[in-house]
């Protein structure tokens, strides 16, 4: 049974179609990437998977459960990192980790997680005084503090410096090695290529390809480019759609 299964998802805001028809399935223990240009419908798709939005039509299952109807059960097993979400200015790093771990029946050890993400030296620092990268790492820690079976990470490494990005990738691999299934929304092709086992390429609200990064590159036909990169491959898949 796939860990995440989406069938013919459709979501429209007023007269704008955000997701036209998305189907995908994420297997246990893989790191699955969702890539595509801005406005392609990636974030709306994951918000429907997270149960934060109700789809107009189609079905979504997470661990066999409906994220809207079985909200409570899904919440306990799903760790979510939201794009651009903040915390109160005056809350300290350890306080927020301690607080969020108390929301889950079988939480991870937040102290270990704090050290793993390099936030140990900042444990008594308030949120407003953290750098962009530290805030991002705290956000990742909060997605993992409930010891989830599935983690959905939206723009994982935005705002991180090159070393911090590589450290974060390493962390996500460790998380996966512990048996957590990861769904990753990303803009960065190097991240998609190095971190993801499989990718779904989304354009104009539809999935245009699902494959491993290697196969996507191998199958790319880009006129005038001898050795196309993943970026070339994805651009050629998505640009055809947006015209």
């Amino acid at each position, binding site marked *: 049974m796939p860990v995440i299964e989406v069938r013919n998802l459709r979501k429209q805001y007023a007269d704008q179609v955000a997701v036209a028809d998305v189907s995908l399935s994420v297997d246990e223990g893989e790191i699955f990437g969702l890539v595509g240009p801005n406005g392609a419908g990636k974030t709306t798709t994951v918000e429907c998977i*997270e149960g*934060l939005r109700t789809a107009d039509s189609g079905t979504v299952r997470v661990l066999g459960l409906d994220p809207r109807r079985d909200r409570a059960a899904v919440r306990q097993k799903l760790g979510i990192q*939201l794009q651009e*979400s*903040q915390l*109160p200015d005056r*809350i300290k790093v350890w306080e927020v980790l301690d607080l969020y771990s108390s929301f889950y029946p079988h939480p991870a050890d937040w102290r270990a997680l704090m050290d793993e993400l390099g936030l140990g030296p900042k444990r008594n620092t308030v949120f407003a005084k953290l750098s962009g990268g530290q805030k991002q790492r705290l956000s990742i820690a909060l997605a993992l503090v409930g010891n989830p079976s599935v983690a959905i990470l939206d723009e994982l490494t935005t705002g991180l410096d090159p070393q911090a990005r590589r450290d974060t990738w390493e962390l996500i691999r460790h998380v996966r090695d512990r048996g957590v299934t990861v769904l990753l929304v990303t803009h960065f092709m190097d991240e998609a290529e190095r971190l993801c086992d499989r990718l779904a390429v989304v354009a104009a609200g539809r999935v245009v390809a699902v494959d491993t990064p290697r196969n996507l590159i191998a199958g790319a036909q880009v006129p005038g480019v001898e050795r196309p990169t993943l970026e070339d491959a994805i651009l050629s898949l998505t640009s055809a759609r947006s015209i």
Partner: protein
Amino acid sequence: MTALAKIIRVEAKLFLRDPVGMFFAIAFPALLILVLGLAMPGIREPADELDGRLPLEVYLPITMTLAIATVTMMTLVGVVGSYRERGILRRLSTTPVSPTALLVAQVAVNVAALLVACGLAWLVAATVFDVPPPGNAVGFVLAFTLGASAMCALALLVAAVTPSARASMGVGQLIYFPMMFFAGVWTPGPQMPDLVRKIADFTPLGAASLAVQDAWAGSWPTLLHLAVMVAFTVVLGGLAARYFRWE
């Protein structure tokens, strides 16, 4: 410890870390009584138009209703508005805990601050100026509780329907200042003109102020005032629950 108890504890800590908010919510009422009592001529002399009571004795319950308005229309509205705008409520809704818990915690922390503030104001009035305790203690607790509930409901409704934290704060202040007028901050006790009193009867803070003053003077709050406060709590609270947006 349950998640809610832990949220309340953390919100209380955050409240205590904001010195400006702390000052206005907790210290201001006591300071106001102290300044009025020391500086305003005649406020400590028994007044004929108050049946021989001290004007300060009328000002103390008014200050307490002012404290209700400050905590609800300034602190509570501001924090809830910014929690929504900054995605904090939304983030909480990704966990097994409902973001309602955060609203409950905010109300609990602000009501606790309000009780401390009123306790301090009372302490100053009693020890420095010999103001006697409320004539009708049960009536006082009843009027104060209902007044605080009605204003909490109003605060949550303002936070529910305003589109941004700035708008929440702005609307909160637009309500705050005229409400102080109806609460009798400038025209205490019998000095309030009849027309103003008739309007005040039907505003949540006006009804609270008049009811608390009645109880302090020793009588029971009127049924009208109690009914007005209950009605505002139920109607505004219901609307807030219906229209609250988490993001």
